[in-house]
């Protein structure tokens, strides 16, 4: 099975050099923790984006179990100039999954570093190793009767807080902006030194997970969406379980209502009436969670408008479906519920739906689970909408203004439809911004459709870019193009930091468009 001569090699690394590095890695980690056979690497090569697999083929994968081993790995990589691509739980679906940004990099898989080092039920904080999954943490809290809630992304159970937070991912509770709720990290630098950020550098400090900023320049940010170090511990804040929780949905009939919805929601969010990262999901996103598109349409191109109308009628869905929740004491929830009801009434349209109306019915159920940080994989239904396992998130940031979200919606629709693809979209409500999330779905087993999806994504980035809109995160196939949108000076500074912290460029070359 193992064919040592056939490794995907990183640029500029000879087979002999690569083999020598693998030899040293085997000595350090044990041969069972250096994966090179096709069979072992297969799960690291499964990507969903339009780039060919070959471009992101790992040369090997190595499993480290301690900080010392991570230091050892980086030392060997420096010696042989072989780059590594660190992953925590490796579930970056639609952004590159577990595969490296460029061909031949060795995946540094930290899944086995999975200790829940500490959960402080008083300060409501946790200190975690990278391999901890949300499910593992959820189980731990339940088993120990600790009344704290997680905030997780939709792949919850199988993804993890460290990887998600390092990629600045989002969840759906009041703690949904994950990097905002992160506090303190431990980073192994390319030279082998171990940095603790924030209060973590102070000897005997007990405030590492309590105070984010520490002293002097705040460094945590430069270790997110970057390639300046390998994070081996991360602190996060957890939300105390509120005495009352009230999830609800508001359906709006027309696509154009997005303007009204955003104008209604912004004050509720800014004033903390609706404290969570609420979502505004369009009809296709909503439908995908429960049915395949083929139930109503068996064509291959863009889903026609009449079909969407039919789905809205028969499945009881809105053109836009707002999911939000109230948290607090029963009294607080009641007061806030009245405020929400009045705000919806004032729009002159919109249908309010509560738990009492739907019970355990999907998609309400999974939304209610996500907004309290429970585990659910229901949203993977998105992949049976068109089938074929192709997915790239197009995630431009928008101002939280109705006119802006409407303009972005129209532009995205126009471009997607030009390529026969669907506008499967949601807006995740931030304080002053919206993460406009479009799942560019395509049949990856169809080369023609894959090529169209690639062109479409390129155009989405460039046309949005021309109007001053850029994505907050992107898959590994489009990191350069995205970095360009943020300007030359930003790229130069990113590179200056890279050269200072990792002069041999051995950590994740290409991440966010950064090379040494």
């Amino acid at each position, binding site marked *: 099975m193992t064919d040592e001569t056939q490794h995907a090699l990183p640029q500029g690394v000879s087979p002999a050099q690569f083999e020598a590095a693998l030899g040293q890695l085997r000595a350090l980690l044990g041969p069972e923790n250096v994966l090179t056979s096709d069979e072992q690497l297969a799960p690291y090569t499964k990507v969903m984006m339009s780039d060919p697999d070959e471009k992101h083929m790992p040369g090997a994968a190595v499993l480290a179990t301690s900080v010392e081993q991570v230091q050892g790995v980086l030392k060997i990589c420096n010696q042989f100039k072989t780059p590594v691509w660190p992953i925590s739980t490796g579930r970056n679906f639609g952004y590159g999954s577990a595969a490296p940004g460029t061909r031949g990099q060795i995946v540094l898989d930290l899944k086995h570093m999975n200790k829940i080092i500490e959960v402080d039920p008083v300060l409501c904080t946790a200190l975690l190793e990278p391999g901890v999954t949300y499910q593992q943490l959820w189980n731990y809290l339940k088993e120990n009767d600790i009344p704290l809630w997680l905030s997780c992304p939709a792949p919850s159970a199988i993804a993890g807080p460290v990887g998600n937070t390092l990629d600045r991912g989002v969840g759906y509770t009041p703690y949904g902006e994950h990097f905002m709720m992160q506090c303190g990290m431990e980073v192994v630098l390319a030279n082998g030194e171990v940095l603790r950020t924030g209060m973590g550098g102070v000897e005997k400090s007990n405030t590492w997970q309590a105070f984010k900023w520490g002293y002097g320049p705040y460094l945590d940010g430069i270790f997110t969406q970057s390639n300046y170090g390998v994070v081996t511990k991360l602190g996060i804040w957890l939300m105390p379980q509120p005495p009352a929780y009230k999830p609800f949905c508001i359906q709006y009939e027309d696509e154009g209502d997005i303007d009204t919805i955003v104008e209604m929601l912004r004050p509720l969010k800014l004033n903390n009436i609706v404290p969570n990262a609420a979502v505004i999901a369009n009809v296709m996103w909503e439908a995908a969670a429960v049915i395949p598109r083929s139930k109503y349409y068996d064509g291959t191109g863009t889903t026609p408008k009449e079909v969407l109308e039919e789905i809205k009628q028969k499945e009881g869905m809105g053109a836009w479906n707002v999911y939000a929740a109230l948290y607090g004491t029963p009294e607080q929830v009641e007061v806030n519920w009245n405020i929400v009801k009045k705000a919806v009434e004032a729009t002159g349209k919109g249908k309010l739906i509560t738990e009492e109306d739907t019970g*355990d019915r999907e998609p309400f159920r999974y939304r209610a689970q996500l907004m309290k940080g429970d585990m659910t994989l229901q949203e993977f239904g998105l992949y049976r909408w068109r089938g074929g396992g192709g997915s790239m998130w197009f995630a431009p940031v928008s101002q939280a203004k109705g006119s802006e979200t409407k303009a972005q919606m129209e532009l995205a629709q126009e471009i997607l439809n030009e390529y026969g693809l669907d506008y499967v979209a949601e807006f995740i409500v931030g304080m002053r911004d919206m993460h406009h999330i479009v799942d560019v779905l395509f049949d990856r087993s169809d080369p023609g459709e894959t090529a169209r999806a690639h062109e479409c994504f390129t155009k989405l980035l460039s046309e949005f870019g021309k109007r001053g809109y850029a994505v907050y995160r992107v898959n590994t196939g489009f990191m350069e193009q995205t970095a360009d949108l943020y300007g030359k000076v930003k790229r130069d500074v990113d590179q200056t930091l890279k050269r200072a912290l990792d002069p041999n460029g051995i950590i994740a070359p290409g991440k966010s468009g950064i090379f040494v």
Partner: protein
Amino acid sequence: MSRKSKYSLLAVALVALAACGSTSDTTQAPGKGKLTYLGKESIPKDKAEMVFQQTCMACHATGVGPVILGRDLPPEAIKLFVRHGNRAMPAFTEAMIDNETLDRVAEMVSKSKAPATQAAQ
């Protein structure tokens, strides 16, 4: 890295599965009233049982993935799907689900009886 071998293996697995009954989707019956959330009692003690319940069934008992229970699926084919993923199914590394646990999960799936909802269809 040979992709050919990957796809031919999956092709064999797919043919094997095609012989094992239909892949209907399970849309659940609408309910009114209260939402039920999972608690401590939902957490299995056994490792393979945990993977089966908290990972596989989170997709395969909810209509996200096809029904895989009660179809006499061959364990080898099940393992290929888990390791390679296929189309809409994500792949799972050894670091995520070790070989021994996967052997047991594949056994459990292979020998399972059809769930009640499936029988009713």
